């Protein structure tokens, strides 16, 4: 089968759905049908790329020269397929969930919501399949713009302020990335993502290397939530919960960490990173972020904000894994991209279900809710166990590889950070579970039952996936094999 055009179609399919979504704004069921249809087709398209990705094949499609020597190019390598699979797969869950949430919450402007969502997914898959930095930047900026209407969806003062903050951070980041790309292009004459990096033959000075790296880090670090660039993310929780679930736990922030790994493994390469001590910069920042974000999570009473800080911390797990510069560490890092996604999306789904069903946003008011919403809270428990790294949930697997990766590199401090952070995760999730199960609920809970199946089925689905991936990381999609192949390609470039 000729797979050459599949990456392009996978990007375009949700973009093609946008006009249909806009045209059927008066018929909600038809409108949502388009979203689901696009989601399923997109996922299937990405899935057809899986066998070739597992064999290590790279499908490359050069569309046109967008600037001399710089083509607009799609490249479905193993890493790209890996990220595209998780993003497009979870979009289907989110689409169903969105229907339940948006209708249950009587949100306005749902057409704009679903249309923007579709554009976001196109951009995310575009990011996954970008063959060079310029293509990456184009989709990266597109993602920024498409997410903006979702962040300000409520159109309240708070929402608009969050939107401004979001744009300030992400547009600045985009510019830094453009500057970094410009300098890289001037030095290397290429912007193509190459396993093992493109700086290998360039005579770099120490200060120049650090400056370029910091520009890159400013560019991708904002979406990756690396402190001190993270503060847009908790504010962006003003968005509807499905947005927080898919974009602020999967698509947008994972595009950031995806970018970090692209920069570390495919632009600089492990050798250059180590030569100039760039990985140490990254490691220190990630370590601080993990600990500080976990501590800040304690201080949040609003459930979504607590989850947001937890996300900031867990994103830096991935960054830390990339900074270790060991194969095992990178495998752990990539595994955490997909596994954190299934767990955190579950938790956000739960938070949204509680909000729609019981109108509760603050943890302090969530006494006894497990009696009313048993399924939701069961899923919530699974998700939080996983994030704390307790087996058999998949978070354990990725954390295990991260820790082994650190030991493989002879580093103890990262392991200590992971252990402390695990304890902190238990610390901030356990009180919620305790409240829900063991404290007596107030009278306001009477007459309420479990949330609508549109919400409960997706959240149970992602919770079950989290356990299944924990039992067998290679189940269905061979995430582990793919991560191994990518790590091998970076550390042993041909």
């Amino acid at each position, binding site marked *: 089968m000729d797979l050459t055009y599949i990456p392009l179609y996978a990007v375009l399919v949700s973009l093609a759905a946008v006009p249909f979504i806009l045209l059927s704004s008066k018929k909600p069921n038809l409108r949502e049908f388009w979203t689901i249809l696009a989601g399923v087709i997109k996922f299937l398209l990405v899935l057809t790329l899986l066998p070739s990705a597992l064999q290590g094949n790279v499908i490359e499609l050069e569309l*046109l*020269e*967008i*600037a*001399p020597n710089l083509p607009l190019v799609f490249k479905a390598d193993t890493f790209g397929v890996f990220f595209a699979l998780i993003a497009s797969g979870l979009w289907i869950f989110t689409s169903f969930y969105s229907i339940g949430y948006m209708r249950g919450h009587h949100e306005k402007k749902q057409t704009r919501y679903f249309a923007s969502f579709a554009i976001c997914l196109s951009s995310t898959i575009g990011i996954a399949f970008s063959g060079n930095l*310029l293509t990456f*930047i*184009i989709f990266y*900026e*597109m993602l*920024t*713009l498409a997410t903006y*209407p979702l962040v*300000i969806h409520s*159109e*309240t*003062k708070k929402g*608009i302020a969050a*939107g*401004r903050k979001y*744009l*300030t951070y992400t*547009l*600045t980041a*985009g*510019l*830094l990335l*453009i*500057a970094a790309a*410009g*300098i890289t*292009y*001037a030095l290397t004459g290429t912007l193509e993502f190459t396993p093992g990096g493109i700086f290998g033959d360039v005579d770099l000075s120490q200060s120049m290397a650090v400056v370029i790296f910091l520009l890159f880090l400013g560019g991708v670090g904002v979406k990756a939530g690396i402190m001190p660039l993270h503060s847009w993310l908790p504010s962006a929780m003003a968005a509807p919960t499905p947005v927080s679930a898919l974009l602020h736990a999967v698509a947008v922030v994972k595009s950031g960490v995806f970018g970090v790994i692209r920069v570390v493994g495919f632009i600089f390469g492990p050798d250059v990173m180590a030569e100039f001590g760039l990985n140490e910069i990254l490691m220190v920042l990630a370590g601080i972020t993990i600990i500080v974000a976990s501590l800040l999570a304690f201080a949040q009473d609003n459930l979504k904000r607590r989850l947001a800080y937890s996300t900031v911390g867990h994103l830096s797990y991935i960054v830390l894994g990339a900074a270790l510069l060991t194969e095992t560490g990178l495998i752990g890092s990539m595994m955490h991209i997909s596994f954190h996604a299934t767990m955190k999306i579950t938790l956000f789904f739960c938070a949204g279900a509680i909000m729609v069903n019981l109108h509760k946003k603050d943890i302090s008011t969530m006494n006894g809710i497990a009696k009313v919403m048993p399924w939701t809270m069961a899923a919530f428990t699974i998700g939080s166990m996983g994030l704390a790294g307790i087996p058999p949930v998949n978070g354990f697997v990725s954390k295990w590889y991260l820790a082994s990766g650190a030991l493989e590199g002879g580093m103890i401090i990262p392991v200590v950070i992971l252990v402390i952070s695990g304890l902190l995760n238990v610390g901030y999730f356990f009180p919620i579970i305790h409240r829900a199960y063991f404290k007596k609920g107030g009278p306001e809970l009477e007459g309420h039952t479990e949330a609508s199946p549109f919400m409960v089925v997706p959240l149970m689905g992602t919770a079950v996936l989290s356990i299944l991936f924990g039992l067998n990381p290679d189940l269905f999609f061979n995430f582990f094999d793919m991560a191994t192949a990518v790590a091998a390609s970076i550390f042993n470039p041909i």
Partner: protein
Amino acid sequence: MIGSEIPALIPVTYILFAILIPVIGLWKREITWHLGVLGTGIATLFSAWGFMHLIQTGETIRYFFGGWVPPIGIEFVYDGLAAFIVLVINAIAFLVLIHSKEISKVEFPGKKMAYYAVSMLLMLGFNGMVLTGDLFNLYVFLEISSLSSYALIAIGEKRAPYSAFRYLIIGTVGGSLYLLGVGFLYTVTGTLNIIDMHDMLPMVIGHSSVIAALILMIVGVGVKAALFPLHGWLPDSYTFASSTSSALIAPIGTKVAAYILFRVVLFLFGVELIDDQLPVTTIIGIFAGIGILYGSIMAIAQSELKKMLAYSSVSQIGYIIMGISLANPFGFIGAVLHILNHAMMKALLFLVSGSMRLKEGHSLITKFDNSYRKKYPWTMAAFTTAAISMVGLPPLAGFFSKWYLALGTIENSNWILLAVILISSLLNAVYFFRILEKVYLNNPDAESSEETEVVERDEVGFSMMFPMAVMAIGLLLVGIFNAYIVNVIFTMFPAGF
């Protein structure tokens, strides 16, 4: 062979129509709009034809007027750069004049005939400036265009004649300085022909009057290009002029002046000679950089759309001049591409502001609200496209000119100007998203956030929508296919690259 007559045919078209419009206009005033559109349309066709011809043959056309060979006679030099700029300005003028149909009926009902006749003269001046190969002849065309633009700006609000008068004073000083510079060069080299003079300059470059001439010319042209700090005339003139005059002059006028800087700095003197005595390019670069930031910051401070766009023009012209000051291939590509991009973006934005003035009777940003989204969905979509392009987000055209300019600054290791480009993009985002927020979102401060009043769609007519749509789509196409244009720009490089 008609291809080689193109350089003469374009100005002749404008002269013909400048005479035709008053003559026929006296008899039938209604058809002056048609004639204006026809005139610019024919000129656009000629320039498109000439441009294609030039790309195919790759030969510069040197047209000697009256058959007199330079340096005795006057010649028009139709090279790649001139052909490109001529095409851009004529096409923009064509679209702007189409858009002026409705506005002219409202903003200056009794002066239609004068408006279209003078705008033909304006275009004659601009085209002449671009095409001529003779420095003194250039001054003549400069004055033709300047005098016409004073007249066009004076057609407008009550305060317009005042700002036009101010522009007249400043502009005349600028023109005179340029002429003085040309005089100095003439006394030293004995020629006025650019190509001829370029060959002679190496012999006299150490002469103090050459340096004085260079400074005088840059300052003189700088006034016309609104290079910071010589921009004082621009904001008021653009704001108080009628919407269609500012849409005509703003995207084209300063570009043509910037083009003269191209010719003087990169072609007449050339990269080898320009910095021989004084660090001219560095100094221009500094002023361009300050101008970019100054214009952007002032634009944020404005509450009137047209005035905001005027300050934004000061900033954007800085980009083009920065590209010249970099004096390297990437800077050149960025600057030339930005002439095209900014002409489209700024024309589109001024057309939107004109449409708003026509429909709402004002273009005060503070009064914008989210009913516009319902009333003028397509106009607002076009505005959004231009705004995003101005901010410089890919894949719209604005990104790519900034990309090449950024590469140019990197090649010169000029980190300060790189930072200026990045910061100014953010400032652009501030002043455009502020408007987009107002247009697309509910006002959270309003009494009721509910949209109680039902707003009917009240989109502008075809004559206004068509030019805006062409430019908005153009921005996307130029962005995606910019490599083709850049490959053409490669052929326009001055000697020494």
